C-alpha cells in the first residue's frame, strides 16, 4: 500500500541505468571507449530494448514511458543503441547520452521525493 515499496524498486532500476550511462560517458569523453566494452554493450542493449515493439517487457516499457515524458526531442533510443555498437564518432553519441543522463538524474530526484512522500 505504500509509495516506498513502489518507488524504491523503480529508483533502483533508474539508478542502475543512470550509473551505466555516466560510466559510458566518462570513457567516451576520456577517449577510452570501444564498441566491444562490456558496459557500452550493456547500455546499447538497454537502449535497443526501449521500443514500443517490446511491449512484453514490463521493465523496458516502464522506462520508455518515463523517458517519453522526460526527454525533449524524442531521440530514437534503439538507433542510439546501434550506434554504440558500431564505430560511430563519440561526438555523435555524447549529446543524446548526456540528455539521457540528465533525464535519468531528474527522474531519480523525482522518484526519491515521491518515495518519501505520503504512504498508503
Amino acid at each position, binding site marked *: 500500500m505504500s509509495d516506498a515499496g513502489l518507488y524504491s*524498486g523503480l529508483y533502483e532500476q533508474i539508478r542502475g541505468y543512470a550509473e551505466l550511462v555516466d560510466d559510458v560517458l566518462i570513457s567516451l*569523453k576520456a577517449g577510452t571507449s570501444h564498441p566491444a566494452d562490456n558496459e557500452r554493450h550493456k547500455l546499447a542493449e538497454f537502449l535497443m530494448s526501449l521500443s514500443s515493439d517490446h511491449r512484453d517487457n514490463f521493465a523496458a516499457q516502464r522506462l*520508455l514511458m*518515463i523517458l517519453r515524458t522526460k526527454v525533449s526531442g524524442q531521440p530514437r533510443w534503439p538507433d542510439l543503441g546501434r550506434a554504440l555498437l558500431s564505430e560511430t564518432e563519440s561526438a555523435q553519441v555524447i549529446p543524446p547520452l548526456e540528455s539521457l543522463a540528465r533525464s535519468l538524474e531528474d527522474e*531519480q530526484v523525482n522518484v526519491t521525493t515521491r518515495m518519501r512522500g505520503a*504512504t498508503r
Partner: protein
Amino acid sequence: MNDYLQGAISELIRRGELLLTKIPTSLPREFHVLAHTCRQELSRILDVLEGLVDDPNMQGQASQPERLRKFRRAVRDMDFFETIGIAALNRANEDDRQLNLLVERIANEIGFPLLPPVATLLSQGYFHIYPRLNLLCLPLVEAAFLLHLPDLYHELGHLLEFERHDPRTKPFHQALDRASSSIAGYLADELKLEGRRRGPAEFSFYLQQWWRCWAESWLVELFCDLFAVYTVGPAFAWANLHLLAKRGADLFAVPTLVPSTHPADDARMKVMLYGLKVTGFNHELSDIEHRWDELVSISGSKPEPEYFRCFPDDILRSVASLAFDGISGMGCRMAVPATKDPIYTILNEAWAQFWNHPDEYPEWEGASISRLRSLGALELAT
C-alpha cells in the same frame, strides 16, 4: 567547481565512515542481514566516492557533469541508509523481534519464495517496504491490532517485483509482462481511435498520462494487492475497505494533469473481488461487495466516464487472472475457502468477529494477538 567537489566528496567520505561506526554490533539475529546489507552498501558508496577523488578521468573539465551526478547519487544513497536502514538497526527492540517472528511465520505459511524481510515498527506513515533493504516498516503500535495486518502481505508482493533475477520469481514477472503487454495494447488502440476521431487534444494527453501511470506504478500495485488476496484471502479485501473508509478520498479518481501513484480505489477493490471470485470465496465476495457499495454511496464519490476508459473491466479481470497464474506458478500456498493455516485463520476470523460480535471484538483481538505471538515463538523454537 573541481575544488568544491574535492572538498564536498571528502566531507561525505568522513560522514560515511562515521555511519559505519553507528551500526550496532550486538543485535538480535533477525537484524544481522540488514546490518550486513547496510555495511556492504556503505562500503560500496565509499568506494565510489574515493574513485571520484582519485580517478584521473574524473579530474578533467569535460567529466564534471558526470562527477556531479555520481556525487549526488552517493549523497542520496547515503541519506537512504542513514535515515532508514541504520535508523532501524538503532531502534531494534523486543516489539520488533516479535514482529519479525510473525513475518517469518507468515512467509513460511504462504510458501513465500524469497527471504522474508526484516520488520521494524519505525514507520512514520502507514505500512511500507524498502525492497533494496528488504526492510518492512509498520507504525509503532500496529502489531497490537489485527484488522490492518493483512496489508503486510501486499508489501511482500513488492519484494517479488523487485527481485528480477531469481528464477523462483520468474512466473510472477512473466505474468507482469503479459499484463503490461495487454494494457499497452489497449491504450495504443485507444490512442489510435482518439487520433481518428480528431476530438479534443486533452483526451490523447489523458491516455498518455494513464499509460505512464499503468507502466510506472498501477500494474505493480494491483499485482501486490492480488498477491495479498491470493495468499491471505478475504481478510485483505476487508483490510482495504477499512483503510479506504479511514483514509480514502475520491474512490474513482482518474489522473488528468498530474500522474497518480495508485490506481483508483474502486478499481483496486474490483480487482480484489475478481481475485476472490477466482479462488472461490463467493460468499465473502458478496459481503465485501455489499459493504463497498455502502461506502461508495456514503462517500459521495461517483465515476466520471473517463474512469471506465482508464480502468476497463476486461483489463481488471485479465490482470486478476494473470496474477493468479504468476503467483500460483511460484508455488505459493493459495488461499481458498478450505485453507486452515493458523495465521490465515486468525486474520480472517478477526474480520468475522469484527462484523458479527463487535462488542466482544476487543477482548477477542487481545487473546488472538497472544496466540499470534505464541505462533511466532513456536517458529523460533523450530
